[in-house]
């Protein structure tokens, strides 16, 4: 009976993994044709700027000019062809297909939206990276602590506190690096509170995270209301980290101006992502962390200190989220406003799940959110008929669709969210 059920389940899921993406591809292809392909006068061109204007560090390269109609037809054909292939034969990687759909749709949309005009593609990609930075840092915080099986949904609260303290410290000492350091320490402190609650007192992890959010929001708004708003120059006016062009690397066409001409926090984020990836998967510490996250009892038996590992990871995660918090103030506007993180901590968590608890994957999904964010700004400039609010919804809808499609393929650490009882 059970084997029969399991067999049916498998058969159903096989059918689903083949049919659903195939139909999706064809449908999206046709949708692109209907939405963007039909009402175009032939002869229109879209220009994508590949060199930022007025940037002397960069070797100029010619712009990319595409004929609108044929470019869209090509994209539609690619989608329909791959969709038909998928229906007939089946391609293994759903990831690849979803990526293709997203790429074609976005490309078609951009070509259509900027028809007859030019668009600074490099600038937009740069903005995407910058906007993805706090999201990615929040996601890294999530990855580090959840790999040790501690769910931390208090990232939002941690980031708010760090944003506040870093701008205050930076303004008082006139030194942005002191601000960054204080932000990191604050993050560690607040995450430490979460750690003590969930590890020592075994509070439900989600509840403790909610409490951290409420307290973080409350304390930062309280201090801002009581002190910062009346002493702006003394406490809340720090300036921001300047953009630093990295010599030589910035000369690389396209990649140079996108990646190697940012402020230090963006570099720090990229380095952290790489470092975490290596550390998590290729060092003894990473192995221990993952063991604690997957099977704490086994890890304990082998002599790993489960509680200590969890404390270290959660507090380290807090440190990373602290950098993310500092980004909001000393990394971008130089001033604290109440509730300025605006849900980035939660989006970071979505990026972490989306990226399958892997630092690189989480960075990738953060970039998607960052791109959607910058797209919406660009669309306002280009004056497209689509209301910006709908463009702003897009990343959230995409997340939901992807999460629904990814099922069975995201694997949270097995012990995620459960406290450990030593016996």
């Amino acid at each position, binding site marked *: 009976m059970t084997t029969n059920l399991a067999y049916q389940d498998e058969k159903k899921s096989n059918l689903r993994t083949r049919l659903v993406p195939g139909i999706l591809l064809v449908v999206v292809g046709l949708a692109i044709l209907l939405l963007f392909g039909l009402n175009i006068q032939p002869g229109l061109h879209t220009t994508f700027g590949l060199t930022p204007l007025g940037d002397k560090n960069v070797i100029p390269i010619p712009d990319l000019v595409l004929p609108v109609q044929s470019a869209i037809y090509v994209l539609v054909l690619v989608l329909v062809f791959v969709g038909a292939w998928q229906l007939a034969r089946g391609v293994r990687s759903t990831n690849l297909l979803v990526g293709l759909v997203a790429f074609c749709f976005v490309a078609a949309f951009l070509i259509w939206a900027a028809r007859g005009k030019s668009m600074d593609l490099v600038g937009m990609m740069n903005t995407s990276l910058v906007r993805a930075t706090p999201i990615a840092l929040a996601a890294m915080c999530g990855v580090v602590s*959840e790999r040790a*099986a501690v*769910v931390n*949904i208090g990232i939002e609260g941690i980031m708010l506190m760090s944003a506040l303290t870093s701008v205050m410290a930076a303004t008082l000492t006139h030194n942005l690096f002191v601000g960054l350091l204080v932000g990191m320490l604050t993050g560690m402190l607040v995450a430490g509170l979460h750690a003590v*609650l969930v590890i020592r*007192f*075994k*509070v*439900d*992890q*989600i*509840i*403790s995270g*909610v*409490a*951290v*959010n*409420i*307290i973080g*929001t*409350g*304390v930062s*708004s*309280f201090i801002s*209301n*009581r*002190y910062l708003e009346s002493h702006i120059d003394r406490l809340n006016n720090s300036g921001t980290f300047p953009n630093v062009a990295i010599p030589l690397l910035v000369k690389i066409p396209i990649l140079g101006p996108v990646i190697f001409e940012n402020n230090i926090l963006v570099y720090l984020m990229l380095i952290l992502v790489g470092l975490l990836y290596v550390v998590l998967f290729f060092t003894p510490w990473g192995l221990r962390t993952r063991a604690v996250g997957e099977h704490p009892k086994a890890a304990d038996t082998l002599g790993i200190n489960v509680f200590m590992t969890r404390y270290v990871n959660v507090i380290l995660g807090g440190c990373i989220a602290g950098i993310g918090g500092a980004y909001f103030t000393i990394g971008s506007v130089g001033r604290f406003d109440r509730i300025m993180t605006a*849900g980035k901590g*939660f*989006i970071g*968590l*979505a990026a972490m*799940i989306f990226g399958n608890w892997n630092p690189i994957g989480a960075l990738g999904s953060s970039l998607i959110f960052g791109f959607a964010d910058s797209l919406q700004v660009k669309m306002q400039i280009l004056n497209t008929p689509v*209301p910006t*609010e*709908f463009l*702003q*919804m897009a990343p*959230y*809808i995409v*997340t*939901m669709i992807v*999460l*629904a*499609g*990814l*099922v*069975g393929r*995201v*694997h*949270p650490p*097995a*012990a*995620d*969210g*459960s406290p450990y009882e030593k016996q």
Partner: protein
Amino acid sequence: MDAKVTQTNPEATKSAGKQRQSSKLLQTLLVPALAVLTGFIIGAIMIALSNDAVIAAYQNFFHAPGAAVAATWKAIATAYGALFYGSIGSFSEIYHGIQNYFATGDRKPFLLAIYPFTESLTTVTPYILAGLAVAVGFKCGLFNIGAEGQFGIGALCSAFVGYSLKGLPWFVHLPLALLAGAAGGALWGAIPGLMKGLTGAHEVVNTIMMNYISYRLSDWLLNGPMKAPGYRPLTPGIQDSAMLPRFFPDPLRFNWGFFLALAMAVFVYWFLFKTTIGFEIRAVGANPDGARYAGMNIVKNFVIAMTLSGALAGLAGATQVLGIDHWVGQGYSAGYGFDSIAIALLGQSHPVGVVLAALLWGTLRSGATRMQSLAGVPTEIISIIQGLVIVFVAAPAVIRWIYRIRTIRTETTVLTRGWGK
């Protein structure tokens, strides 16, 4: 020893059982009560620390220690006094108001005196409903962070029905507007529930995503299709026939919404504890594998629980529109999401507990504004106290450790789970 036990008469065992039961009830209430007390004590410390006069007094503590203590006491007493006055009112004013009414027939002083109290009850109304929404989710093992979005959509839907339909009698229009709010919220809750059931996509992320979608949707609606003529992004005011009737003349906004909320609490209690579907929902929440093995349909229960949860949150939005504001503006649902989670936790996900927790929460929120204007303490102090209360309620061990309470064995319930399960 044995003989003694066998010889005890039934009366004694009965009273002992009663005693044990009452001590258990006391224990259940003791921890939340001490949690609230501790939250207020820490809040008092923060009030004192952020008061300039107190800081100044402590700078010459060694010359005049009495003055420092007096300044501290004054700061705390002023703040909490204002909080109390702002949320409950003054008893002597109410007393004089009643006296005055009987002497002269003038209702005005009385109404002014009960204004803070009725205003608190008005604030409590959406908190009861939104707290119930989250509690229903918890009972099914689902963590609905999306009450805020469901609240917002519910408010928009009921406002739309409220202003667009004209010429209906109130007994048709008002229920219709309330239903529209509930339906909007239900839809917004059902989608994540369905996705959780069908594909396993985690409801926490999906409800957060639905929140953001609802903010953008409401931004668009308020600046476009639903915008009233004028500069500000507001909906038109609703028709009189769709308003929840108020009990008192104008500055007092206390209305039928409060009793609707209480009725919904009774309904949720009945639904969860006296019906088969409610039992299934609780079974799925307690042990999904067990429920599945017993032949219950997990997907169905997820969808029902999230639909009910969303409907309650949407109804909260509807009561706010139909009873209080009569229009919807931007950022209408801000803050309700987290507050409702906190209320559900504080009320231990039980309808009665939720009502009590909402009473406390709404009263504090309502009094906080007064505290800010009278004592200069930012309203955010309430958020801090609330966060602390949640911590202490969720970690009874901390409270027991502080107050040296003997540990008794109580059933622990798993409220939430990790992402994957």
